């Protein structure tokens, strides 16, 4: 039973849907400029200072940190997950897209890996270099000032390296490498793979002009979200400060169904379900900004059908939902026997990458376009559910390294000692690479399924093609070679072409973007280069949906830069009465 309130007197300057990276930045900029902003968030209010489970021990969870309730473990900072009860999504038969959603203030930024890479000149204009993908309507130089401002506002560590397609930034000092990272660096360098300091948004030093955020105290648990506000979460670093201006109001537990339009087809507000009373409401604003995450923003637009916009809002081109793309991913794990019985000390460090390898090869000699970067994991981490669960499968192979003969498996005192000896010896190499935006990889409204609120859900069509599969093979081969040559005992099975050389399923890297893409031509894009709808000038999209094509870089720093750019554009256009 819908409970619609028409003619609500309160009208906001701007309505923002979603409080993740994109929505948080927009709310921050607009509220600080004095606009009256209403932010609707489908999940609960979440303040890391109070609600994070940082510094809890595994025994404080009855499931010892297992991921039964929360996809990344019982203490993790991401509510929601791959499946949300009552809010399904579907796939066509030969598609296996997986959609990760966090429903909470700050969205997925409470958990995210904090890897904060800028896209480079060739990522914005990749098509002009190799013809493999479409170009963005904007260049790196146009976005650079915003990357700079985001670096200064939110903080990111790293080193300036002068690399052509991995632009330098305004960096805080990076954390030093851990032991296994040094060993992997040595081996990688022998193979010509460059290894540089990670680039992540964690405050290793105080942030200038910001007394609200603390400095990192090296607990290694950014995934739980930092109580000291020392990592970038949209909740702590953007939304809560924006609320403090008095100009931003947040309605948590409020799930937006559609954008409402007036007789002329302009956006006038949104309708939403208040999850607390299960009633439907409407709120009105002069501009509407969608930031519900790439797929959800596409869903809202496609569900916003009206006489004026019969194909859904901002969709006269028919591209909404199309060009969905994630990153590629392959991971290979191993034990480093040389670390056996290592001396114990606290190497928790920062809960984000200490080192990484930017893409390094020349594509003219390869059978796939562009490439991937490498992330390095491992260390003497806090034990959790599943502690060295594969050790009894590999202790035979590990013993062989010591020159002893032993069957894998076992029990009793000797096994117990092995669990101790191999603490902190496990490492992982993870590649994250270019996935191509294609018209035929897309999401659309499933005509047969609605969620528990009666809102039609998304159906996905997503398949890997040759370019991604060949790149996956390259990743897997590179990682196996690197480990083999350093005498590691590899625990990941070598996967053949029948399972795409170990490529993760589409969506599993959680970098999905591209579903409401920008462009100069209203026939082939939904938004202009300011993330403003071609069909509806007071409607904007500021999450990953406007992306034309990502490179091998994780998307969030670019979401933040573009959201800031669009928000400043809105301020300017409002002054000129253009909206």
């Amino acid at each position, binding site marked *: 039973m819908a409970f619609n309130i028409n003619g609500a007197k309160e009208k906001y300057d701007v309505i923002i849907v979603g409080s993740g990276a994109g929505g948080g930045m927009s709310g921050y900029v607009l509220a600080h400029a004095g606009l009256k902003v209403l932010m609707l968030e489908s999940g609960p*209010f979440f303040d890391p200072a109070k609600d994070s489970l940082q510094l809890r021990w595994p025994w404080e969870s009855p499931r010892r940190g297992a991921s039964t309730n929360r996809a990344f473990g019982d203490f993790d900072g991401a509510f929601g997950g791959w499946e949300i009860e009552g809010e399904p999504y579907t796939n066509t038969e030969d598609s296996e897209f997986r959609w990760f959603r966090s429903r909470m203030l700050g969205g997925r930024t409470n958990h995210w890996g904090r890897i904060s890479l800028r896209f480079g000149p060739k990522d914005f204009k990749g098509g002009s270099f190799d013809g493999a993908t479409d170009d963005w309507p904007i260049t790196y130089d146009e976005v650079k000032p915003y990357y700079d401002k985001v670096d200064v506002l939110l903080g990111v560590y790293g080193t300036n390296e002068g690399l052509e397609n991995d632009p330098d930034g305004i960096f805080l000092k990076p954390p030093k490498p851990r032991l296994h990272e040094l060993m992997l660096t040595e081996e990688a360098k022998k193979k010509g793979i460059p290894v540089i300091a990670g680039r992540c948004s964690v405050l290793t030093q105080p942030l200038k002009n910001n007394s609200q955020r603390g400095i990192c105290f090296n607990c290694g648990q950014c995934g739980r979200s930092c109580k000291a506000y020392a990592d970038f979460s949209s909740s702590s670093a953007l939304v809560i400060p924006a609320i403090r201006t008095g100009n931003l109001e*947040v309605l948590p537990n409020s799930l937006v169904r559609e954008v409402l339009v007036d007789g002329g087809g302009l956006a006038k507000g949104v309708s939403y379900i208040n999850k607390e009373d299960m009633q439907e409401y409407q709120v009105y604003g002069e501009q509407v900004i969608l930031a519900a995450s790439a797929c959800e923003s596409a869903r809202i637009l496609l569900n916003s059908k009206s006489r004026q916009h019969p194909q859904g809002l901002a969709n006269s081109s028919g591209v909404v939902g199309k060009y969905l793309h994630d990153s590629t991913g392959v991971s290979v794990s191993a034990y480093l026997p040389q670390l056996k019985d290592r001396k114990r000390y606290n190497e928790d460090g920062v809960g984000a990458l200490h080192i990484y390898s930017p893409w390094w090869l020349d594509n003219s000699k390869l059978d796939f376009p562009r490439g991937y970067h490498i992330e390095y994991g491992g260390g003497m981490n806090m034990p959790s559910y599943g502690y060295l669960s594969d050790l009894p499968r590999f202790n035979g192979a590990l013993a062989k390294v010591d020159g002893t003969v032993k069957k894998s498996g076992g029990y009793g005192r000797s096994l117990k000692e092995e669990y101790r000896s191999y603490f902190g010896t496990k490492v992982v190499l993870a590649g994250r690479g270019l996935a191509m935006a294609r018209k035929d990889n897309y999401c659309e409204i499933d005509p047969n399924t609605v969620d528990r609120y009666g809102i039609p859900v998304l159906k996905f069509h997503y398949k890997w093609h040759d370019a991604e599969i060949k790149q996956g093979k390259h990743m897997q081969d590179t990682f196996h070679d690197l480990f083999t040559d350093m005498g590691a005992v590899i625990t990941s099975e070598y996967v053949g072409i029948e399972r795409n050389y170990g490529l993760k399923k589409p969506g599993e890297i959680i970098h999905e973007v591209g579903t409401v893409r920008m462009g100069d031509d209203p026939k082939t894009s939904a938004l202009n280069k300011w993330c403003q709808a071609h069909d509806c000038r007071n409607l904007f999209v500021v999450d990953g949906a406007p992306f034309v094509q990502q490179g091998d870089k994780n998307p969030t720093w670019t979401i933040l830069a573009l959201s800031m750019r669009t928000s400043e554009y809105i301020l300017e256009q409002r002054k000129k009465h253009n909206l």
Partner: protein
Amino acid sequence: MYKMKRRDALKAIGVSVMASGLLFHRCSSEKANRVVSRINLDLKDGRELWERERFEELNSYTFFDQHEKETLVELVDLILPADEHSLSASEVEVPDFIEFIVKDQPELQQPMREGLKWIDDYAKQQFQAIFVGITIGQKTHILDRIAYPEQERSELQLGISFFTLLRELTASGYFTSKAGIDYLGYVGNRPNVWEGVPTEILRQFQLTHLIT
């Protein structure tokens, strides 16, 4: 205006306006800590309502019967026994953890129950008594046949998979207990200043050229 209506709506479903904490309206001078609008969807101790409810539900019944529990106690202590410096698995309550986890992950229930039954049947077949009733020598005789998966004895497949699962759960429970973490020597999870690998370790691994 819509706020008034919203209040009415709340009243209609029997929630008091005060309890709903509708403080979330514009409040230019108010601080963020006043910004709370939750009824039953709030977080308590960092947990969502459904997580708390689920926890209570899982704790409201017992899965393993007395005999199964006794068998588990013996088995986990054979897997991770006490030594001069550390406690055994049952001493750090690994069986209680396993009781919880099979309720938490119901797909583990059947393999665990069938496995416990298998081990009794096998003991009876070999030694004419259930597992807890045989000698320690007889127990290790059985474990020696199922603890080394590479041996591939198809007639023991059930026992082998059961033991593999139980060993994983035992390690999970043990090394996430306080005593288990002390045994491993993990010294983190506290405020620290990370300044890189200690010099003596760099020396040990011939990485001194990386001292900065």
